[in-house]
C-alpha cells in the first residue's frame, strides 16, 4: 500500500503515537471507559445489548490469577485497539476502510467507507473492534451532548479506538493558528489518558527520544500483549509482577487455563 510506504519514508518527520498502560497503577475505576464513550459519541446500550454486542472501545477486563479463595488476586486490564504497526485488520479490509495513518501511525478506521463485512473483526486478535449491530439511539435530547469533533456512526459499520483523532485534528488546527505544523508533547492526548486518576496511561510519540513515553518503553517490565504474534502493537503494558505478566500475555506455555471474570 502506498500509504505504508509513505510511513516508512517519512518516519523521521512524523510522530508515531503509542501508549503505555501501567497495570500496577490501574485501579479499575472504569473512568477511561466512560470518558472514551463520551468523547467518541458511543451510544448507550439498547435493552437487548449484551457484553458481546456492546460498543466499548476502551474495555476493562478483570483478569484473575487463577487461584481460588483466599489466594485470588486480580489485575485490571484496559483493552483497546493496540494500533499495530503490522496491522492484521488493515491487510484484510477489502475496501480500504482501515489505514495506517502516515501522519501519526494511528490505525484509522473510516466508518463511512466500511460496508460491514466484519472481516477485520475476525482478524483482530485483541477483540478491540466493534460492530454497530444497532442503529445509534440516544435518549431524547441527549444527542445534544454529542461531541462535535467526532461524527456519530451508523449501524452496520465497524468502529474502534483511534486515539481520539478528533483531538489530534483540533490540536493541529490550534497549532496551525499559531503558525506551527508540529504539535508539542502535551497538546494532544486521548481522552482516556487525560482522565486517568492514577496516571496509569501514558501517551506520546514513540519516535521522539525525549518524550516521556519513549523513556517508559525502555523499562524492562514493559511488554506487548500477544507480542509473539508479530503484529507490532504500539500499545505497551507494564507490570513488575510476574503472575500478571503470565495472566495477561501468552509469553509462556500454559497448560492450565486462567479463569477470567469481567
Amino acid at each position, binding site marked *: 500500500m502506498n500509504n505504508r510506504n509513505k510511513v516508512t519514508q517519512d518516519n523521521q518527520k512524523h510522530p508515531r503515537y503509542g501508549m503505555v498502560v501501567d497495570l500496577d497503577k490501574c485501579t479499575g475505576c472504569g473512568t477511561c471507559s466512560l470518558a472514551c464513550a463520551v468523547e467518541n459519541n458511543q451510544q448507550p446500550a439498547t435493552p437487548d445489548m449484551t457484553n*458481546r454486542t456492546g460498543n466499548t472501545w476502551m474495555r476493562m477486563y478483570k483478569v484473575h490469577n487463577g487461584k481460588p479463595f483466599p489466594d485470588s488476586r486480580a489485575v485490571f486490564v484496559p483493552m483497546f485497539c493496540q494500533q499495530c504497526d503490522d496491522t492484521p485488520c488493515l491487510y*484484510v*479490509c477489502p*475496501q480500504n476502510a482501515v489505514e495506517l495513518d502516515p501522519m501519526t501511525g494511528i490505525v484509522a478506521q473510516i466508518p463511512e467507507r466500511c*460496508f460491514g463485512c466484519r472481516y477485520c*473483526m475476525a482478524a483482530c486478535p485483541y477483540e478491540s473492534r466493534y460492530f454497530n449491530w444497532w442503529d445509534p439511539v440516544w435518549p431524547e435530547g441527549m444527542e445534544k451532548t454529542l461531541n462535535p469533533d467526532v461524527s456519530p456512526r451508523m449501524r452496520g459499520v465497524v468502529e474502534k479506538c483511534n486515539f481520539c483523532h478528533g483531538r489530534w485534528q483540533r490540536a493541529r488546527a490550534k497549532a496551525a493558528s499559531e503558525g506551527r505544523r508540529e504539535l508539542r508533547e502535551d497538546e494532544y492526548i486521548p481522552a482516556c489518558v487525560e482522565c486517568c486518576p492514577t496516571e496509569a496511561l501514558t501517551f506520546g510519540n514513540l519516535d521522539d527520544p525525549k518524550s516521556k513515553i519513549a523513556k517508559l518503553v525502555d523499562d524492562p517490565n514493559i511488554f506487548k500483549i500477544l507480542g509473539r504474534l*508479530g503484529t507490532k502493537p504500539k500499545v505497551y503494558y507494564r507490570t513488575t509482577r510476574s503472575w500478571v505478566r503470565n495472566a495477561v500475555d501468552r509469553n509462556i*506455555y500454559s*497448560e492450565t487455563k486462567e479463569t477470567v471474570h469481567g
Partner: protein
Amino acid sequence: MDKKLIVRGVTRMEFKKFITYLIPWFILLGIGLYAMYLVFRYGLNHTNMDNRFAFGLWIYFDLAIIALGAGAFFTGLLLYVFKRHEFKSVINSAVVIGFICYSGAIAALVVDVGQPLRAWFTLYRPNAHSMLAEVTFCLSLYLTVLAVEYVPIVMKNRKLKQLPSFLVFEFKLHKVMPLLAGVGALLSFFHQGSLGGMFGVLNGQPFAFRETVLVFPSTFFLFVLSAIAAGPSFILLTTWLVSKISGKRLVTKDVLMSLGKISGILLIIYVFFKSIDSLVWLNKTSPAVGFSAADHYGFAPFGIWILSLEIILLGLVPGLILINKKLRARTSWLLTGAVLACAGVALNRFVTTIQTLSLPTLPFADFLTYTPTWEETAIFLMVIAYGVILYSFSFRYLPLFPQERELHTK
C-alpha cells in the same frame, strides 16, 4: 397446460402436482424474505453474531455451498478443456447447480454485510492485499460467467428455440464455451483459494494462520483441492437425488462412477496435503507464536477428534471407497463415499469459520459458542428453497440431462 414448454421426448409430472410440490419451498422462501426485510430494516441485531463471532451461519454456508458448487467449473473444465466427453450428460445440471450455489451465496452475503449499498466500493477502490477483495472480484465475475453459461441452456427450451435469432446466438455461445470454461476455472481457482486464504492470512488468529506457499497461505491450495474433490461428488449426489425424486433415469451409471472416481483420487491427494499442512501448523507455525495444540483443541466440544474426523473418516475413508473400482460399482458404496466427501468439505469449512472464532486468542478471553437466530436460519433455508425452486423449474423446462431422452425411450 405447460406441455409445450417441456423438453421434447421426456415426461414431467402434472403441472398442478408440480406446483403443489413447490408450495412448501415457496413458503420457506417467503419466511426468508421476511427475515431479510427485518435485517435490512433494523440491522444485524436480528442475528446472534457478535463482536467476536463476527461471522456466523451465513459465512459458513457461503463457504460450504461455494465449495460444493465447485462441481460446475470442474466438470466444465473436464469436459471442455480436458475433453472428457462423458460429462456432457451432467454439465447442464452442473452449471445450474453452480449458478444456484453462487447466486445463493451472494444473496446471503448481501444480507450479511452491514451496509450492502456500499459494497461497490470494493470494486471501485479495492485493497489489493485483501483476500476478500479478491473473493468479491472473482465471485462477481464468475457469477457472470455462470449466467452466460446458463443462457444457452435456457435457450434450448422448446419454446425459446423457435426464435431464430436465439438459435444463432446460442450457437455462437456454444463456440465460446471452452473459453468460458477455462476463464471460469481460473476465476474459480482464485476465489476458492482466496476463500481459504481469507482465514489462512489471519496472523492474529493462530488457529487459522498458515505457512505461506508461493505468496499464498497453504489453505489457499487446500481449499481449491478440497472443493474440486468434493464438487464431483456433489454433482453425483444431486443427479442421483433428482433421479430418485423424479423417478427417471437421467444418466448412465458409468457417468456417476466416473465422477466418483475423480472425486476419490482428488480426495486422496487432498488428504495427503492436508495432513502435511496440519503437522506443519501444529508443530511449527502455531508454537512459534505461543500456541500449542492444547490451546487449539483444549476446549470442549472441539477436541482433537474434530481434526481426526475431518482427515480420516471424512477424507481418507471416502477417498479409499471411491478409488476402489469394486466398491464404486455398487451404488450404496458410491453414494456413501460421495456423502462422506461432501460432509468432509462441509466440516472443513465449519472448522475454518466457526472454530476459529470460538477459540480465544487473548489469554484472558473466553471460549464462546454461538447459535443462529430464527432469522439467520430462515435466510439460510431461503437460499436453499431458492435453489430447489430454480432447479425444479430448470429440470422441468430445460434439457438438464441430455441422456434422459435416450434412456427414456429405451
